[in-house]
């Protein structure tokens, strides 16, 4: 279970005379184990800030975040992150990138070949394990990022607009692919996106945020039955959710 308790984040004033920014304010949210939870909201409303605080990269200036029984104070391998821009290490091959978490954890760069090869296969990356990231397409790079995040068996997976930079077709392939993965290992997912269709299609729950300073505007439990397919987004139920969410977003935009 992940719990945001009245979390606030203020970025300090800059030395060049920029005002302090209150990025997030009074943000409270509870995510159950194994839940797929999406956050949508206008650009700049603090979505990345929220994810970074949960990951432990930033500390809240108010409130706290509790994961299981512990308050989050620093990053940890049980909460892995997939960034929007593939953050692969360009000097490592695909298989070394995928195994990076194991290398760090076991202080041993060799000896995980079996796990890595299994992951490579699962991710449809067979034949590319000795390639470097710059030799892969955007979608494949993002699959490597996901593989790297999953290989340490995290209890939660934090994804910050992971498919935002992909073209529509690749994006839809990746959504399907992510659902498959999630079905098998069922980590808790916090998924950030600005694409309402994507949020509804993937999630158990969609959280809509207000513009900055970001708070929860409204939450929607998505009760579309699983497994969901590409044509789920054409069902009347889906469209009803979409209409509700869009209307909250418009209202908030003023």
């Amino acid at each position, binding site marked *: 279970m992940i719990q945001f308790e009245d979390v606030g984040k203020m970025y300090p004033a800059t030395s060049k005379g920029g005002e302090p920014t209150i990025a997030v304010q009074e943000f409270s949210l509870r995510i159950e184990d194994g839940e797929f939870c999406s956050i949508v909201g206008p650009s700049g409303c603090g979505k990345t800030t929220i994810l970074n605080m949960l990951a432990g990269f930033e500390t809240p200036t108010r409130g706290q975040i509790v994961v299981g029984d512990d308050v989050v104070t620093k990053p940890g391998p049980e909460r892995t992150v997939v960034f929007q821009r593939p953050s692969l*290490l360009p*000097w490592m091959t695909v298989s070394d990138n995928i195994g990076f978490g194991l290398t760090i954890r076991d202080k041993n760069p060799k000896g995980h070949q079996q796990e890595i090869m299994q992951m490579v296969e699962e991710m449809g990356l067979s034949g590319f394990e000795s390639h470097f990231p*710059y030799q892969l397409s955007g979608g494949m790079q993002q699959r490597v990022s996901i593989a790297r995040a999953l290989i340490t068996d995290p209890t939660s997976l934090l994804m910050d607009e992971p498919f935002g930079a992909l073209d529509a077709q690749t994006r839809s392939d990746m959504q399907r692919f992510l659902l498959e993965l999630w079905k098998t290992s069922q980590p808790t997912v916090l998924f950030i996106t600005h694409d309402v269709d994507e949020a509804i299609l993937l999630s158990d729950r969609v959280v809509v945020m207000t513009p900055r300073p970001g708070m929860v505007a409204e939450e929607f439990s998505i009760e579309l039955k699983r497994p969901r397919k590409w044509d789920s987004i054409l069902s009347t139920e889906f469209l009803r959710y979409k209409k509700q969410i869009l209307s909250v977003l418009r209202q908030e935009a003023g």
Partner: protein
Amino acid sequence: MGYPWGNQKAEIIDEMPMAATDMTIMESGRNYRGYVPWIAALVALIVWEVVAALHLVSAVALPSPVQVFRDLIATATVGYSGQTLLSSTLFSFGRIAVGFALAVLVGIPIGFWMATTDWVFLIIDPFLQFLRPIPPLAYLPLIVAWFGIGELPKVILIFFCTIPIVIISAMSGVKGVQENRKRVAECFGANRWQMFRYVILPSALPEVFTGMRVGIGVAWTCLVAAEMIAASRGLGWMIMSAGGQLQIGVVFVGIIIIGLLGYGMELGIRTLEKKMVPWKGRA
């Protein structure tokens, strides 16, 4: 007729490194890379020969390439003022190699340390910034006064004129590490050493290489200047002394050897760079 679009295709692919996977297309368009530099050098030689043959400049001031080649043979076999070309070259090269290698070995760790530890930066930066803009010739008299005119002062000079470049490039390489890459390692619980080994060091390598290439050029400038003033052998000394006796052919020989050595070192660093940072410019 041939295929006029063949080369265009290669150029377009060249501009898109992400798409450059089709090696056969790439290489067939790049055949010219093997011979164009040689043609350019040959044309330069011919122009030189023509200018010299037409006596546009006095033959003493501008010997022809053929004359220079004779001087080259003479300095290589008989020597100039008791020093063969090989010994002059080896002395200069040795001074550079030792001084520059020391600067790299000491400079890279200092640069990394300054970039990661604030108090180290605060202590070293003033000295570095103070030393950097001073032309080495300004402190050459001091080095000569303290260390004489043997090998040690030259090595020290090379060391001091190249180490700021190495330190600054290493430092900026470390500072330029992408935040997300560090975060990935933090996420998995990397300790300081692992962070350095797997993220910071490889990120910084491209800039370190750039610094080394600039450093080599500066090293030659410093060395030749120093040899012109306070030395009794080495290429700089040979050039200065031959110039004084109007043996311009020998001056050319010296210049050409320095140029070729510099070029050779650049090629060496490039090869090393390709091996160690194949991803440069693509990530």
